[in-house]
């Protein structure tokens, strides 16, 4: 036997197969960030209250849709797995949930652009860091979360997603301040790239994992 058997690698591969192989997770992520890219436009059209309601409704719709798609598309092809509920796993889930909520909070905060966070005018070079402090924090929070997830689950593309989304958010806010772009173009491009990767992953999954008809 030329290769060693690493139990952690087997567990990572199990996680990859059960969660990331079908591309549906990528499609959900891309769709959520695409929603965020459209968020400022719909806020102008609908107003803040109606917009947040629409956003939450679409978010719930996407999550339920992803779960349904997993049940209909992935389940018969990949099978079903119940993850192990170890204390370490529970802690990981709680930490991930907190950081995801924190990230979404920070991303939404950057779109609202409260006055106490920025000067409100075009930032001069010396105060550039301070003016985009929240966005820079978002870059490192998103990048950090996705890097950690990528490492723990052994999914390399998550590193790319995290840093791309973080910097796309920074670029979106910068363009909004300097060029007056309401539509978050860099954010939409990043979300579009994730959607394309997710779609390709899904096509590959459908080709590689046909529906199994045997059952004991």
């Amino acid at each position, binding site marked *: 036997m030329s290769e060693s058997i690493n139990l952690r690698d087997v*567990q990572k591969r199990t996680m990859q197969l059960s969660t990331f192989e079908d591309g549906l997770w990528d499609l959900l992520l891309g769709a959520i960030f695409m929603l965020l890219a459209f968020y400022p436009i719909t806020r102008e059209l609908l107003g803040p209250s109606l917009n947040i309601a629409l956003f939450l409704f679409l978010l719930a719709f996407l999550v339920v849709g992803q779960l349904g798609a997993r049940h209909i598309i992935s389940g018969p092809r990949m099978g079903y*797995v119940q*993850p192990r509920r170890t204390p370490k796993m529970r802690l990981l889930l709680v930490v991930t949930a907190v950081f995801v909520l924190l990230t979404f909070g920070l991303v939404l905060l950057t779109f609202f652009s409260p006055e106490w966070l920025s000067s409100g005018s075009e930032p001069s070079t010396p105060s550039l860091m301070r003016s985009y402090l929240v966005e820079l924090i978002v870059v490192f929070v998103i990048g950090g979360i996705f890097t950690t997830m990528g490492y723990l689950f052994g999914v390399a593309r998550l590193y790319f997603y995290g840093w791309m989304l973080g910097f796309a958010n920074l670029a979106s806010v910068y363009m909004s301040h300097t060029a007056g772009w309401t539509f978050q173009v860099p954010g939409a491009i990043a979300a579009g790239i994730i959607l394309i990767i997710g779609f390709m992953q899904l096509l590959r999954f459908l080709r590689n994992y046909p529906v199994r008809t045997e*059952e*004991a």
Partner: protein
Amino acid sequence: MAKKTGIGSDLLGLAEVDRVVHEPARLMILMVLYGVESADFTFLLNATELTWGNLSSHVTKLEEVNYVKVDKAFVGKKPRTMVQLTQTGRQAVDSYRQTMQGAMRRLR
């Protein structure tokens, strides 16, 4: 009476390795189940790349020695067979890993 030393306790320990776990296909199944609460047959087929008949026979063998628990149920109209590692099975995998790691360290 002189103490029997044979070929050495290290190698004798290796000879006592659990042969149910040692079989490569069963080891793969156990390793996959080690990291999850339970998995169905379809997932095990994809994860281990065994054939249906092979997987079925190995799971039956593991069930006979109480290393795994098999639950057959219907979800809607479709049958679903969930396989779960028992506490005995988990201990067997841990013991097997310790035995093999010890043996490999000493094997030069």
